């Protein structure tokens, strides 16, 4: 097991290197291939009256005049060893891992990211809890009461949930519940958990519900299908024959088997979501990583993008790893 984890860690590091290198390629090589000079690239990050000399100096300062692999190397070195930046009169040491300074605002990227992470985490965690509970329980009940009105209705609603784009449901929900009825918070509200837990929950209520609606639908369908498969297996019949109460049969034996694929998907979904719930955050104007990343990409602000890509990929990789490890716990046949 230990060796397996080590192998996965190494693979994870490699993966991160590849992903960040690809980001560099997209942001640097592609414009260069399209004919942009370092000064062209630098000119986005200066004021309007900058003279050509200043633009050139900025290009040097931001490293655009160096070849792409040198810039990449510098980035990796900053991650591992930290970097030093001149602020003018002083030199600031950016401790490892150093994600660099935004080209546009000259603000350090990592503190910004860490600042926004709680928002995305709040959104993802709350939503995940709701959709897991709602989705799985709906799926279980649907499976048990197969063909009933509840089943049909639930699966119908689930189907609707999977078919609606989240920005549409989000907007609809905002306009109805926040602006017309006034019972939920308007767009852009967010209060950190430590500051005011009740307010925090209130502000996130609508985003949680819309997010959960989307995912719960998928999970309900998945759970239902998985339960239907499992409940037909022999060991369930054995459990019933042994005289176990139905609830134990369903939950402890049935659900547990059906859980594996659900776990996989849950891990992946959560990982993806933590990497930036771009659409939800944009719809509700939540100051999380997703919104940050869209701004970064649109402004071609590479350090920010690299930061987001790294954070997002780390979450996805970690989620994958955790899910695989959990397999070993849930399914005794799996051995590493």
């Amino acid at each position, binding site marked *: 097991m230990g060796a397996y984890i080590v192998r996965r860690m190494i*693979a994870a590091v490699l*993966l991160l290197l*590849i*992903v960040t290198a*690809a980001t560099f390629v*997209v*942001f640097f090589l*592609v*414009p260069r291939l*399209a004919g942009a000079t370092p000064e062209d690239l630098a000119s986005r990050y200066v004021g309007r009256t900058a003279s050509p000399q200043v633009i050139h100096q900025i290009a040097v300062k931001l490293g655009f005049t160096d070849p792409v692999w040198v810039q990449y190397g510098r980035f990796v070195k900053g991650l591992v060893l930290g970097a030093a930046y001149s602020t003018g009169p002083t030199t600031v040491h950016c401790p490892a891992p150093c994600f660099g300074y935004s080209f546009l605002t000259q603000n350090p990227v990592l503190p910004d990211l860490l600042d926004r992470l709680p928002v995305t985490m709040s959104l993802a965690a709350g939503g995940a809890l709701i959709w897991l509970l709602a989705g799985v329980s709906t799926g279980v009940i649907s499976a048990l009461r197969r063909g009933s009105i509840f089943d049909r209705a639930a699966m119908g609603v689930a*189907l*609707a949930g*999977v*078919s*609606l*784009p989240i*920005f*549409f449901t989000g*907007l*609809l929900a905002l*306009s109805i519940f926040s*602006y017309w009825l006034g019972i939920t918070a308007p767009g852009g509200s967010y209060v950190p958990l430590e500051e005011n837990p009740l307010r925090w929950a209130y502000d996130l209520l609508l985003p949680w519900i819309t997010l959960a609606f989307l995912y719960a639908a998928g999970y309900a369908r998945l759970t239902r299908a998985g339960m239907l*498969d499992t409940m037909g297996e022999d060991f369930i019949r054995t459990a019933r024959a042994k005289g176990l109460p139905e609830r134990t049969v369903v939950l402890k034996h049935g659900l547990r088997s059906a859980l594996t694929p659900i776990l996989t998907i849950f891990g*992946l979904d959560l990982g*993806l979501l933590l*990497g*930036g719930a*771009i*659409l939800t955050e*944009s*719809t509700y104007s939540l100051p999380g990583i997703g919104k940050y*990343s*869209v701004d970064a*990409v*649109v402004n*071609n602000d590479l350090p920010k*993008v690299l930061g*987001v*890509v790294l954070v*997002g*990929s780390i979450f*996805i*990789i970690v989620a*994958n790893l955790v899910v695989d490890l959990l397999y070993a716990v849930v399914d005794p046949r799996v051995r590493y």
Partner: protein
Amino acid sequence: MPGMSEQGRAATAIQGRSLRQIAWRRLKRDRVALAGGGVVITLILVAIFAPVIVAILGHPPLEFHYDKVDPELQVPRGHFGGISPDFLFGAEPVNGRDVFSRVVYGSRISLLIAFAATMLSVLLGTVLGVISGYFGGWVDTLISRTMDVFLAFPLLLFAIALAGVVPDRAFGLTGDTLRITLMVFIIGFFSWPYIGRIVRGQALSLREREFIDAARSLGARSPRILCTEMLPNLAAPILVYSTLLIPTNILFEAALSFLGVGVRAPTPTWGGMLSEATHWFQIAPNFMLFPGLAIFVTVLAFNLFGDGLRDALDPRSR
């Protein structure tokens, strides 16, 4: 298909039915799936015949109608965004464009991009998945790791970045054609691992089966085995997952248009219309409602049909 059932009838009850026949019969009995399928076909027809429909029922999608809009408030005149026999879905704020014709034309973009991107994904995914699953070894490891890399990417971000970085004139294409090709490429290219993984899994289990061994022992070489033995057996899951990938891609394209990186204005796209509608939903709700409903109905129909197809083709479902 007609040929098959004739065969079946001629041979009466003794001859077993092929998978296709069984699936087709089951599908025919699934009302809901058929309804979904019907809607899909209707939508495809609407997309194909968009110019005719719009000529009869609406105004050209790019045409402005200032008389329909209040000059001070910029809002369409009339109730609920100006819905009238003339403007079936009302008019857009500021310029008074016909929302109905824009939604109808938007279906072309959505369906075209979704279908083309799905085909690209399926092509890439099937080829790579089959090779990976059948050959195993280092080929498998290489392709699987590549799939992992793709799945580790924050997709939407990269799509936005790529779409923003490509200039106006590239690869000999310009304008709408370029943007559509770009969308197809981006969506299709980033979606292939989903098909790839499934195909790989199926190929892995298939290659252990006896008929593969039998073919090999008869002297068939790998390419032949892949084509004549593996692919036909993979057809069913590929078909199902393709049908389920289409709605995902429709949503993906809508998201990209919503974020402003898809096909450019003034060509109507559902996501693009929703994006503009976010500023107006409090006073011109029609602008948001109809493109959103269009996406919903389309995606729902594909999902229903895809579900029905999966149930029909799955030997284990009851």
